[in-house]
């Protein structure tokens, strides 16, 4: 692919890792993620209400001792809905990353290793998908496939593979020129073995680091779809849908839109810090 290679934008090497070798990003990030995961697993223990149980007599209650964060227009407990919503959003955000990861890594390896026509065809497909704004394509695809979890999986897979393909292709192009690859080639290794056993283990780290930060994008995408009514369908609690539901009461019951959003922010922050921390620890020679 023709690209402009001008002044490279890279973070300066000195700041990658703290002086003492501890990545605070990793510590804080995994703590936040750990707490959130624990909360989603122990959801029945830390909530007192069923997230879909309606109690109209208690509708739009303010935050207080009975309902910590208040209730929505159908009297459903907001705290329960947020905690159970985490189950839905996190599960989809993680699972949805598996297929693009696998497909993207394989195609990136093939494109980088073989070059020529294979490379041209794969990279043109990448260019085409990349031309669509992420949110526009996600919304259009989920709309045509019909709202719901399956459509979300298909749509994200159809789009996110391109990032891995680009990333891994670039890494493979570099790795291919290394001596250990020439040596393995000279030893008469088959292409498949060379790629799978020698090149892949050396380039996969970058994809793993990227996956963590891409999950942040997944969560934002899923929540956006939920907000637009294209995501997980009610009554299953989902953060984006909670925000959309609360929007009509924003002047009287601000908590209904504010808290689900904060839940998204904290989760995304945990994931981002974890991803940065992972990069600190895993990225070689930094």
């Amino acid at each position, binding site marked *: 692919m023709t690209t402009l290679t001008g002044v490279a934008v890279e973070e300066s090497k000195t700041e990658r890792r703290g002086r003492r070798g501890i990545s605070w990003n990793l510590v804080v990030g995994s703590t936040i993620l750990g707490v959130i995961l624990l909360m989603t697993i122990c959801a029945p223990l830390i909530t007192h209400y069923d997230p879909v149980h309606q109690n109209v007599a208690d509708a739009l209650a303010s935050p207080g001792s009975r309902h910590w964060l208040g209730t929505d227009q159908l009297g459903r407990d907001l705290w329960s809905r947020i905690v159970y919503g985490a189950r839905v959003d996190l599960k989809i955000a993680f699972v949805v990353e598996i297929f693009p990861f696998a497909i993207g890594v394989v195609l990136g390896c093939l494109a980088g290793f073989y070059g020529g026509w294979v490379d041209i065809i794969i990279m043109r497909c990448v260019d085409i998908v990349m*031309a669509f704004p992420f949110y526009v394509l996600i*919304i259009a695809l989920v709309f045509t496939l019909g709202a719901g979890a399956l459509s979300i999986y298909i749509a994200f897979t159809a789009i996110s593979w391109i990032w891995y393909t680009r990333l891994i292709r670039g890494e493979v192009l570099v790795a291919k020129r290394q001596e250990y690859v020439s040596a393995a080639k000279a030893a008469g290794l088959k292409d498949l073995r060379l790629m799978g056993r020698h090149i892949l283990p050396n380039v996969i780290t970058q994809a793993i680091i990227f996956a963590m930060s891409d999950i942040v994008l997944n969560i*934002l995408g899923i929540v956006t779809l939920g907000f637009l009514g294209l995501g997980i369908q009610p009554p299953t609690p989902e953060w984006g849908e909670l925000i959309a539901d609360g929007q009509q009461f924003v*002047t009287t019951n601000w908590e209904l839109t504010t808290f689900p*959003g904060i839940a*998204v922010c904290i989760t995304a*922050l945990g994931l981002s810090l974890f991803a940065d921390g992972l990069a600190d620890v895993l990225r070689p020679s930094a």
Partner: protein
Amino acid sequence: MNRFSFILHRLGQMVIVLFGITVMVFFMVHLTPGDPARIYLGTRATDSAVANLHHQWGLDRPLPAQYELFMGRLVRGDLGTSLLYQSSDARLILDRLPSTLWLLGYSVVLSLLIAVPLAATSATKKDGLRDHAIRLGSVISLGMPSFWVGIMLILLLGVDIHAFPVGGYGNGVIGHLWSMFLPGLTIAIAVSPLLLRSLRASMLNVLDADFVATARSKGIPRRRILVSHVLRNAIIPMITVLGLNVSFLIGGTVVVEKVFALPGLGNLMLQAILARDFPVVQAVTLVFAVMVVLVNLMTDVVYSLLDPRVSFD
């Protein structure tokens, strides 16, 4: 490869990508489980009404013929006909384009106004308290869903203190600037961390450069070095970052337009989705993708003009 042949090569690539985009948008309708005409008309539609719509969309023909029809219309500037509005998609899109372009331009300006001073502070005070605070802030704001940020801004600045209008497009230039401030800011909050990161990194690189040391040794004031030496060199890579993120930027307008009830392309798309108006969804998706392709081309050309050191490979 010289500059001219580089631009020619990029144009050639662009044609392939544009072709691919039309194929993808064309096949979108065929991805629908079930019959798009029946989905639009509802379950109680008569068979003849469905057949009529099939004929209107050309769905009754074989696939290659359908694509030929689709492309033939496209070349003549016909993006299809909206079922909901009973008017041409091209007309609808042209009507709503100004609002979206305004929002895009405005949010780019606001993002730069946020990112450049913060990046300069962050890079010059590296590892200081302000640097850490700015970096943490950018990580947090990257993870905020922009529609939620929009609602929060409405709540804080619109509803409570009535500082800004909470919806609509306004009249005249001043009116646009006034009523699009909150939507522009919403997008800027999402985009500026990306710019900030790259600008900070490239400023740190430039700060280490020999010519900065030379300038310092000549006794040029710090502020002047920062603006005319460091920033000028560091801002070029940021143009690429801005170009790369234009698709993110454009995607962001869709949801933000809904939150602020702006009469733009994104809102047109979302309303069409509610009405199951396939031709409009297709046409808007196509226009968005073409916009991204054009901006990316422009970025590459501008970049190659701005930085004489750039190499083409």
